[in-house]
């Protein structure tokens, strides 16, 4: 008897909750946008940069409704999460991690009236485009900052997984450093995963043991490495989000971050106007998707000027991968008169002269 009373009370409570839902709903949004993240948006890294871009889009477009989901794995689970967003009225979906591509693409075929933008991939359909930052050349000014700031002439670079794009980042970094400091060397440690905190801390320590006084990284979140470096009085250059300075303000030099806001705003406007065009968008410094983070207090004005000038030069089309480029075993990989760009950035399986490390 008591049980049935409790059950009835529970049902009544549930009904009340559901009944309250529509009453709370606001006016119809101008556009509903869904976004899935592979991690937490508070990672000071990649996911944060995506969150910042989407928030900028939301501020730019009145009445826009944003539905978000964090920690969405790169599996069929992501397809279910995005399907749920479509059920809630999403007409544009940002699938922000590389491994979400196939699942977003499946949904794009099933829902031709919903538009998709995927970060980092290559697939295309009338309602499916993709975008990413052109990171490699943008690392060159980071190298300029490091080459000028180092006292030991040893720079440390923690790489999660040594894919071609990551190796290209290391290469541009070292070339930038050597352009202002011919004695600068970059030591590389590969952890084997994009997010293994304990290994990242150990890798930063190992680099500092080998004389690095500046550490930088290509992993999902820079938080652990920046803090590990600061604990041993080593400086850091960040990557992914331009907000990482607050992790260790005293030991912050600068950083390279993604600025997705303008692109996301334009995309949302094109969906509202019915003019969406799928494209493979890749933008670097000076083109909208990449920016140099604010400088730390430790960086003197002349170095700031130099780094900013270098970033401007990259923005105006300077390509560090213009031959002759020699690898760290002395072999000329890009002959004089040639240059690597675009898709070739994924082809690096060698480090440039001055990098201490093996790529394969």
């Amino acid at each position: 008897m008591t049980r049935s009373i409790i059950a009835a009370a529970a049902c009544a409570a549930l009904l009340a909750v559901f009944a309250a839902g529509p009453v709370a709903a606001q006016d119809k949004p101008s556009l509903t946008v869904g976004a899935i993240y592979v991690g937490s948006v508070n990672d000071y890294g990649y996911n944060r940069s995506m969150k910042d871009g989407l928030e900028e889009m939301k501020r730019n477009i009145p009445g826009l409704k944003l539905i978000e989901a964090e920690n969405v794995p790169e599996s069929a689970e992501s397809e279910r999460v995005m399907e749920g967003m479509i059920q809630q009225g999403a007409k544009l979906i940002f699938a922000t991690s590389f491994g979400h591509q196939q699942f977003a693409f499946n949904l794009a075929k099933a829902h031709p009236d919903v538009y998709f933008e995927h970060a980092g991939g290559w697939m295309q359909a009338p309602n499916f485009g993709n975008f990413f930052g052109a990171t490699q050349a943008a690392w060159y000014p980071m190298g300029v900052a490091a080459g000028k700031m180092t006292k030991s002439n040893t720079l440390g670079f923690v790489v999660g997984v040594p894919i071609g794009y990551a190796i290209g980042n290391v290469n541009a970094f070292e070339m930038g450093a050597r352009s202002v400091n011919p004695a600068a060397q970059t030591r590389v440690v590969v952890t084997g995963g994009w997010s293994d905190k304990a290994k990242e801390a150990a890798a930063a320590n190992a680099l500092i043991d080998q004389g690095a006084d500046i550490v930088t990284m290509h992993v999902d979140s820079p938080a652990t490495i920046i803090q590990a470096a600061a604990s041993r009085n080593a400086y850091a250059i960040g990557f992914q989000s331009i907000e990482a300075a607050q992790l260790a303000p005293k030991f912050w030099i600068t950083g390279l971050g993604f600025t997705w806001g303008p692109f996301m705003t334009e995309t949302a406007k094109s969906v509202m106007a019915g003019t969406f065009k799928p494209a493979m968008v890749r933008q670097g410094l000076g083109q909208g998707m990449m920016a140099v983070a604010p400088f730390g207090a430790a960086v003197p004005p002349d170095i700031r000027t130099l780094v900013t000038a270098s970033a401007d030069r990259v923005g105006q089309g300077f390509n560090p991968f213009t031959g002759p480029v020699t690898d760290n075993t002395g072999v000329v990989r890009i002959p004089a008169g040639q240059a690597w760009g675009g898709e070739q950035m994924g082809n690096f399986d060698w480090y440039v002269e001055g990098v201490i490390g093996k790529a394969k």
Partner: protein
Amino acid sequence: MNPALIAGIVAGAVMSGTSLLYATLGEIVGERAGIVNLGLEGIMLIGAASGFAATALVGSPYLGVAVAAGAGAAANLVFAYVVVSRRANQLAAGLSLMFFGIGLSALIGRPFVGALISGLPRLAVPGLEPGGIGARLLSYDSLVYLALPTALLTWWLIFRTRWGLGLRTVGESPAAAFAAGLRPELVQYQALTFAGLLGGIAGAHMSVALTLTWAEGMTAGRGFIAIALVIFAKWNPLWAIAGALLFGGAEGLQLQLQAAGADVSPFIMNMTPYLLTLAVLMLWGWRRQSAAPAALGRTFVGVE
């Protein structure tokens, strides 16, 4: 090999070996009472998340470690109720505990992702040149310095006290322990509480001292390495010290060698800890039978 490399390898082994040692010591005590806890990974994660959360909220890493120990013990008491009082299968209950721990730690840690904490301070031996090799080798947080005494204390508890005798008796033969006037269930509850305390501390060392970050699943399988270490240590806390240093060192070694510019592929480097694990288990394998508590993993259903 340069001195900085050797100092780095040793310091790295100590730092990453510490959490392994705490976890292994706890598991040894639990297994000495006849209970295999495959949920250790989950206990460590609960410790890492709750310790980080408490540190972020209150600002004291010491309180964070205490909360982590309490949370680890509480979670292990749930496990104890299931396997001791309800007499459930230990392997199944342990795996469930692991998944429970993964989920619960994600829930606890979620609001604290990205929180900035000041972790356990490093206490350097005074008089050493800052940035020098001596300072690198002798500046650790307090949990590192306490790890060795904890191992010795655990050894003393198991092999030199009346309680330890009872514990080992329960692990060898609960029926005999019962006949001798002991209450096997009570001893097992006590052992699992102790194991939970240490498992929670092991997790807290990773989040509050080693990385100063909370990330889902951040223990990355170290709970299972600790379970393997129990076999390696032959259920003896003193051997666990060597095992934790060896396994902690294996991970640090390959990162140090990469930084030093060793002419080996990073892909092979990343395999070395697992190759070492296999080699060690092969070398040890033949001796483990005699050392395992006889009633390990069995359910004691009482004596008529």
